[in-house]
């Protein structure tokens, strides 16, 4: 039946191959770029602790001390874990830009989808006549 339905072209094997490669390259670029550029992960800071050689100096009570020792740590090896803190300070502008990008992305996708969806419905159920 020819009723104005869209007939897609048949994609050649080479075209299929190129599309797969393109998508794969894009995936790897997006996922490995932050890792290779060293931009991944948040910043860290350290607590200022004067005495890093004793459990009490590190602020550990006897129960904690026993637990650390059970896990095979000494005050020296545990200290880097105990004093390390994530740095949650952030830039409001960066936050704003990120929020805009996420929201903008969804708006764009929904808008494009809507125009494509109308076509789908029109073909499936017939065009509205009014």
């Amino acid at each position, binding site marked *: 039946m020819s009723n104005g339905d869209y007939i897609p072209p048949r994609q050649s094997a080479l075209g299929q191959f190129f599309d797969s490669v393109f998508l794969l390259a894009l995936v790897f670029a997006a996922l490995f770029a932050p890792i290779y550029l060293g931009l991944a992960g948040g910043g860290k800071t350290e607590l200022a602790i004067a005495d890093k050689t004793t459990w009490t100096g590190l602020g550990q009570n006897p129960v904690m001390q026993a637990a650390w020792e059970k896990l095979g740590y000494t005050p020296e090896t545990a200290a880097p874990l*105990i004093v390390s803190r994530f740095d949650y300070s952030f830039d409001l502008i960066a936050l704003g830009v990120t929020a805009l990008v996420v929201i903008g992305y969804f708006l764009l996708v929904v808008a494009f989808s809507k125009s*494509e969806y109308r076509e789908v419905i029109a073909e499936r159920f017939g065009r509205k006549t009014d």
Partner: protein
Amino acid sequence: MSQTTTIHGEKISLLRVLGPGHVWALGVGIVLVGEYMGWNFSVGKGGAIAALIACWVAGLLYTCVAMIDSEVTSTVAAAGGQYAQAKHIVGPLMAFNVGLFLVFAYTMLEAANAITLGYLVQTVGGMAGMTDAAGEALVLHDKPFIVLTIMFLAWLNYRGVYATLTFNLVITAIAFIAIIILFFAVKPWTGEVLKHNELLTGLPYDWIGVIAALHFGLWYYLGIEGTCQAAEEVRSPARSLPLGTMTGIMTLLIAATMTWYICAGLMPWEYLGQAVTPLFDAARFMDSMPLMVLLFIGTIFSTLASANGCINDASRAWFSMARDRYLPQWFGAVHPKYRTPYRAIVFLVPVAVLFAYYAPLDQVITFSILSGLLGYTFMTFNVIMFRRKWPLGTIQRGYVHPMHPLPALVLLVLCGATYFAVFLGYGTQLMAMMLFFFIASLWFHFHRYRYVRRGDQFSMPWPRPQGDY
């Protein structure tokens, strides 16, 4: 070789062989590993109390996800799961994006599982303490076991869905029972082993730590929504999918709370926040060889079950997209003998291997969480549009979720908070990911969509949607 000729009009499809137990195993199997590793990074993000709050807030988020998803999927039962939902409710480009979210979330989760398994084998190898002739300690490498995990499970998936998910049902059940046994072994009714009073230190980062902890709090449950990927292989999807998903989320809420309770009562939060295998560490505290062996097996099984389910789900999503020609149609093939999307399974193997081989664990987990998060954001407006286009009563629903649109709104708010949490630690990845989906969307809209049949994409026997369409 004339047996190769096909009868005109002959078709092959995936097999409908699964019951509700398999759905539970697929959902819980993917997620339970989150209890064995990964969730504890949320302890590092905000302290042990923050991790518990995050666990319950994320539990609320996922209850919303499960409710919404159960309703939509009890009507849109097709192999792509949320992909097929997006195609019928929002539109093709959204569907393409959702399909990619799924493939990313599951392939990255699969890589994370393989990394953990390799690490565990290596650790146990170290504990066995083998030395060479000169007395130097020998090191067991993790890479061969990482690759073997992925290869073996891909092979299992290739060979048929029934065997794959029955295998999952068994090992998931064992991993779950291991957590319960450990819970009773630490005698939570006495204060002998667990020392919450002494170990809990309040909120080291104050309340911002609680929000930051949400990032990895998702890990307690991530992937439960994967149950609906099996829609075309379940015997009665309208009943089995909601049942399997809801019992799954309950199982996970119980397991997550028990896990937190055990670990937070045994280990200082600074250690717990960076441990790779926290439950196995908890067993080491008990000085009991059988418990250690049990939790070792539990960890191995949970990573296997998860990676196994991930291969299943990622390949179904990839396959469904190819069937609609959103991706090269070559991937839309079904194996005539095993009735699995075999080309999609094979294609995703090297992707998973590369990530498991080269990327650090927390990064891989973050990619997975971000993809999941984008998918949950989609669900919020998806269900609202679903109810608008097909109000209750216009089509048959296997399950109707209560209090609409409250779950959708709660989900949206929680997603917003989680984006903020990811932004705090991994803002660059978030942007890189958005850039990727942005480019991929343009590519799809202006190039790829040309090969897609328009009306054929709408395969559900529904009436025309209400509204201006």
